[in-house]
């Protein structure tokens, strides 16, 4: 043991040491929690407060109106229209996207020549920004000079006014989403598939199972947690689709998602109310309803996919 004088010095040192060990972890995680709390969580909660007011950017007065904004919203046909569009675009884009991604991943899960090239090629669409994708596809889907109508014409089809119809415009938007996300999801499925033991596949081959049978009976049950994960992530993303409809309707009807609101999504409606009409109170109520919808959809999907797992 050291003498009296060095002991004092040692104490300071050990105090510093203990302070360092105790405080450092909190110091290191604090930037995340401070910024996320102030600019992520707080605005989300404050939205609830704003939604209880008549609150416009154009006026200084914010009158408390209780749940008036919500009761209006429930009788707002534009809101229900946007909700319906969001759900149908979500179904049209998510189901084919995930099925295609599964098939692709199953194919990629072979020993391929040029493995990296295929994977890079499939990731390519994910690099383009959503804005770029929406602009490029907006041109491809053009009524008079669009490439897609030209190809359809060659195949004997008529010219489709993609922007005008409800089904056609939503299909076009879904195709943009499918195009951008299929390869990415295929990579995620592929990662999960590589953890499935080869011996299972070998046993199935001995029993004469075809490739598709192996996908259905072995691979899909084995990677179900990953499938549930992708379904939930694409639900949360799908409920917030914004850029595609905004730019697909580029021109005079961009905020309304087409002249008859035929492809206006919830996010786009939120934007129209908040930054087209500057009605912040009503926009906040819309945001909270969206939050509710997203939470319900995510939980619903989780329960549904879990049930399929049990059934299967």
């Amino acid at each position, binding site marked *: 043991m050291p003498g009296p004088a060095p002991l004092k010095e040692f104490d300071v040192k050990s105090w510093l040491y203990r302070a360092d060990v105790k405080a450092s*972890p909190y110091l290191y995680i604090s930037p995340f929690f401070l910024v996320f709390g102030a600019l992520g969580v707080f605005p989300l909660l404050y939205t609830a407060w704003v939604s209880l007011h008549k609150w416009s950017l154009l006026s200084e007065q914010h009158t408390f109106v209780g749940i008036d904004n919500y009761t209006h919203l429930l009788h707002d046909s534009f809101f229900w229209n946007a909700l319906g569009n969001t759900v149908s675009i979500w179904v049209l884009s998510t189901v084919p996207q995930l099925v295609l991604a599964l098939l692709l991943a199953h194919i990629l899960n072979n020993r391929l020549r040029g493995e990296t090239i295929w994977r890079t090629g499939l990731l*390519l669409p994910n690099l383009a920004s959503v804005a770029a994708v929406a602009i490029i596809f907006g041109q491809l889907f053009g009524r008079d000079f669009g490439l897609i109508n030209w190809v359809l014409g060659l195949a004997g089809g008529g010219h489709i006014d993609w922007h005008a119809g409800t089904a056609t415009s939503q299909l076009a938007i879904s195709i943009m989403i499918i195009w951008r996300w299929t390869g990415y999801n295929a990579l995620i499925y592929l990662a999960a598939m590589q953890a499935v033991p*080869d011996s299972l596949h070998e046993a199935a081959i001995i029993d004469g199972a075809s490739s598709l049978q192996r996908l259905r009976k072995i691979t899909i049950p084995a990677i179900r947690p990953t499938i549930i994960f992708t379904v939930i992530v694409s639900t949360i993303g799908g409920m917030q689709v914004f850029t595609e409809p905004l730019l697909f309707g580029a021109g005079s009807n961009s905020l309304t998602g087409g002249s008859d609101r035929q492809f206006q999504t919830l996010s786009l409606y939120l934007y129209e109310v908040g930054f087209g009409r500057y009605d912040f109170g009503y926009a906040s109520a819309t945001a909270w309803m969206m939050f509710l919808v997203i939470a319900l959809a995510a939980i619903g999907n989780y329960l549904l996919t879990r049930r399929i797992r049990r059934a299967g």
Partner: protein
Amino acid sequence: MTATLTRTPTSTAGSRLSRLRRVRRLRPGPLTYLTLTAFVFFSAFPLYWSVVVASRDNSVLGRVPPPLFPGDQLIANLRRVFDTVPFGLAMVNSLIVSSVITFSVVLFSTLAGFAFAKLRFRGRPGLYVAVIATMMVPTQLGIIPLYMLMAKLELIDSLYAVIAPNLVSAFGVFFMTQYLTAALPTELLEAGRVDGATTIRLFWHVVLPVARPAAAVLGMLTFMNAWNDFFWPLVVLTPENPTVQVLLSSIASGYFTDYSLTLTGTALATLPLILVLAVLGKQLIRGIMQGAVKG
């Protein structure tokens, strides 16, 4: 390099029979390659198409059949993009925003990841669960108060407003925690402690070198997301001081869309990320796949 991509069969390759069968499974036929080629074709085509349009003038685009190959107007269109709209400013703005966000996210994620992975402190499990839970929260829905806050701080139309909410990322913290838990040897930290190193010295000299590969992947993903971000920048910036995505939307949104101008812009805006993919594609793909397995 290929360690994570190579699958080692778990069964003992004893009998000739099983080896034969494995060969059958692992050597795909021409149909497989044909399918993949079709997929890659459709993946690449819209981007190729933007280059075709970017190298043509608008009158050609109205012809039937449409041109399928690039023309000779690329230079003229490039000049138009830089002369008629503030494209240079937008590119610089995007570069500043994305670089600052990337640096900050990687730094703060590595710090927090180190704490969650290897340091002991009260409340750690609960706080980590909070991080994971926030990954799923659609914070986009808070834009109204966020906009009011930025207006109060007089930051509308300023790059600070775009950067501030993106300085940290829950996914980043999660990603680095997962990586450091597995890759950072606890003995190395203990040895450092015995030598009397402070926590920040450990971070600098032990953690950072180990974290480098994961930090690079996180950096790439963050840069891509920040470069392509649209909703919040659109709300908070004006067409006079835009990021590249905001500028693209404003030139696409006229009553008459000048497609050769707009698609020259989209091609240029996508080019930096294509270069990243070309150079670092392998690491990027590995990062996405690793994040997926652990998630």
